[in-house]
């Protein structure tokens, strides 16, 4: 394509290496002005890196950038901001204990000659934008007290406040609820109506279909193609991305459930604010069965997991594994009773980011032989285990054993955790949002792993906010609402619409009483 002013952004021959790793190899992209343009690629493909280069956060080793046909050199974010580029990062860049207003004006304060900030004026400016784009944001709230959805709107607001022409959104929907996602897409359309250009990185093919005109696909640091989204199905997009045909729904045989392994009876748990978060919940998971818990965020999922893992006190009720009660004991006891959990927040509870991959691989096992003897670690055995994990669960790059966990891309961090937890040989595997932020290729392999474990006779409790995931993977679907299971379906009776209705609490009074 020619360099032309019709394009808001054109990047040419961008190459970037991190040490010996080639993150991007001569990648180019052309983004038409006033469009929404998606970037699709596997975890670690280099999407974030490419956008960080556009934003001046990283420097390319080679390559050129053109904005509206003019060559530019973007050495720092400061330059990018001057060129009216805004970016919402994958991991939010907000100062937790600042107010929304402080976060928005930071670096671009409305101040007098002495540097004294005029907060009143800043606040009014912000409110103007809030009104214009109908963003629901409270300028006086502290970041740590607002929802993730609102935090994201703060990030967008921050970009708009700086007066942008181009907005880059890096995986903006990974942590949003379906409602918030449709709100975001509305905002994006609103922006393009204003002549602004939006670049969005996302793994969710559905969202690309519903928001974008064009989609550029990157695979392992190489440019693959740019397609017109309208002419491509979700499967075609996914296949292009991973380089092979993929299944968005993993095949599986009928479940052959055995005896009940795990049981919860009449569970009551309070949340932090001493309000009942789980009230009278009952459920059963049998060997060789995946029980999926569907529900909108905040209906007690978090407390349920914490109660099972003894991270939170149970007020009343019974939690039993293999007939043995474990409620209100200790995490260690839960682990001893062969329950393994893939936690929702992999960076907080799954991994120690500053440890190496192999150190992370033996978390929870380091006391066991052969990984240690007489309190001394056996590094060669640990190395063998790590190699096996990397091999079996396709953690990339292959030679990451001694890299720090934080250097892995999100998807690969997740595969490492899942591998580690499964090799604990648990009787019950709890997977909370196991595919959040992962690409469709990785999702496929994680779903396959879960189903394989089921076929080996494990009991699996899958908790996810993605209804698709629950419907595709679970054998039995339980809908959680207001701290209670209000309805259960078997997989073949579950219809997205009906389940969705129950998730929103519909029909509760009419015909669905507690169903366990």
């Amino acid at each position, binding site marked *: 394509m020619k360099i032309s002013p019709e394009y808001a952004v054109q990047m040419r021959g961008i190459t970037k290496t991190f040490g010996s790793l080639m993150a991007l190899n001569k990648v180019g992209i052309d983004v038409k002005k006033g469009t929404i343009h998606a970037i699709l690629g596997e975890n670690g493909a280099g999407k974030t890196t490419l956008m960080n280069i556009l934003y001046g956060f990283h420097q390319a080793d080679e390559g050129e950038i053109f904005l509206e046909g003019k060559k530019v050199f973007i050495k720092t974010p400061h330059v990018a901001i001057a060129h009216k580029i805004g*970016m919402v990062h994958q991991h939010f860049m907000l100062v937790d204990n600042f107010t929304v207003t402080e976060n928005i004006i930071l670096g671009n304060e409305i101040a007098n000659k002495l540097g004294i900030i005029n907060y009143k004026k800043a606040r009014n400016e912000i409110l103007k934008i809030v009104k214009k784009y109908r963003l629901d944001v409270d300028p006086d709230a502290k970041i740590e007290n607002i929802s993730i959805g609102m935090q994201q709107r703060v990030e967008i607001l921050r970009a708009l406040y700086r007066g942008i022409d181009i907005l880059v959104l890096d995986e903006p929907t990974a942590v949003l609820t379906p409602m918030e996602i449709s709100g975001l897409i509305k905002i994006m359309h609103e922006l393009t109506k204003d002549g602004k250009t939006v670049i969005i990185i996302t793994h969710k093919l559905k969202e690309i279909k519903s928001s974008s005109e064009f989609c550029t696909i990157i695979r392992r640091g190489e440019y693959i193609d740019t397609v017109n989204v309208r002419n491509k199905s979700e499967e075609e997009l996914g296949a292009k991305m991973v380089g092979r045909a993929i299944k968005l729904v993993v095949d599986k045989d009928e479940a052959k459930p055995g005896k009940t392994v795990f049981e919860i009876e009449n569970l009551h748990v309070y949340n932090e604010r001493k309000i009942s978060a789980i009230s009278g919940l009952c459920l059963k998971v049998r060997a060789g069965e995946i029980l999926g818990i569907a529900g909108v965020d905040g209906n007690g999922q978090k407390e349920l997991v914490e109660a099972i893992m003894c991270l939170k006190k149970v007020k009343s009720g019974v939690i039993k594994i293999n007939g043995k009660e474990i409620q209100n004991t200790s995490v260690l006891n839960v682990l001893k009773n062969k329950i393994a959990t893939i936690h929702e927040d992999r960076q907080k509870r799954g991994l120690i980011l500053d440890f190496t991959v192999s150190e992370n691989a033996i978390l929870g096992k380091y006391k066991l032989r052969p990984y240690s003897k007489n309190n001394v670690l056996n590094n060669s055995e640990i190395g063998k285990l790590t190699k096996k994990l990397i091999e079996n669960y396709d953690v990339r790059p292959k030679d990451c054993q001694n890299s720090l966990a934080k250097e892995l891309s999100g998807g690969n961090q997740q595969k490492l955790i899942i591998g580690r937890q499964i090799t604990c040989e648990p009787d019950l595997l709890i997977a909370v949002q196991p595919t959040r932020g992962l690409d469709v290729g990785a999702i496929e392999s994680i779903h396959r792993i879960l189903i394989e474990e089921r076929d080996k006779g494990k009991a699996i409790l899958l908790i996810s906010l993605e209804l698709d995931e629950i419907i595709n993977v679970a054998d039995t679907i339980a809908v959680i609402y207001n701290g209670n299971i209000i309805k259960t379906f078997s997989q073949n009776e579950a219809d997205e619409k009906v389940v969705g209705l129950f998730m929103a609490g519909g029909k509760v009074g009419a015909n669905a009483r507690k169903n366990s």
Partner: protein
Amino acid sequence: MITLTLDDIPNILMYSTPLILGAMGGVISERCGVVNIGIDGMMCMGAFTAATAGYFLANPWLGLLFGGLAGGLIALLHAIACVTFNADQTISGTALNLIGPGLALFISRLVFAGSTQTLTVSRKMPKIFSQEVSGIFRQINIDVTSLIALIIVILFWFVLYKTKWGLRIRAVGEHPAAAETLGINVRVLRYACVIMSGFFAGIGGGCVTLSTVSCFSPTSISGQGFIALAAVIFGKWMPHRACGACLLFGFAQILTVKLSGEKSLIPSQIIAMLPYVLTILILILFVGKSVAPKASGKPYNKNIC
């Protein structure tokens, strides 16, 4: 029976002033994300340089200024190590605590014919009122350095919470990557703050040798830097609260002086512990949990974040 009167205010302030200035140094450095446990070393270097310059130039004001500059120079080393080379901030600070007194004594021997004590300055820092005033003015005739320290506290508070520079400093101390993506130069800001930290610590040291006494000796600075750091933490990294903690300590110190003047049954060694114990007690009982700036102590390297 001991009584506290207005007369004690100048003394309380005299004890507190070096601590307050040291604490301000700690606040500014930690607020932008660099732990500076080298405050004591910087104060020591400042105290020596101030006394020496004050002696040779026969001008305490210039002496104080040079004290500040010497502290700033030492702090520059800290900045180079921690900001440019991402060194461990605790180790670098410890090194400075060893270098500060060592260098001061070394130069002292060179300059003052082998003596580790500098010669007495001809002019000390003045008090706010002349010696001739009487009545209440005489009672509250505090050191001018105390007044300066209090003004600096107000200034620090104002800058940190009301100006864009303060907003940026606090942001860099909490989340440097976020600040960087908004076009703020993290390194430059950290350099500035660390050097300032040394400057104020140096002045704090100068207050000891130019206001409290009138020469530098090896014991002029003996742990004030660490007490200042404790005040920073007790003060939750806020200038006004850190200042409060320093004043509390100064108050406890005066109490001790008075107590040990009395004939009492308590051994003087126990009484000497009083300021520390009292400070800790009050702070445990009345000050809640304090949370450090999130990025404090962590080197910032944008390629691994």
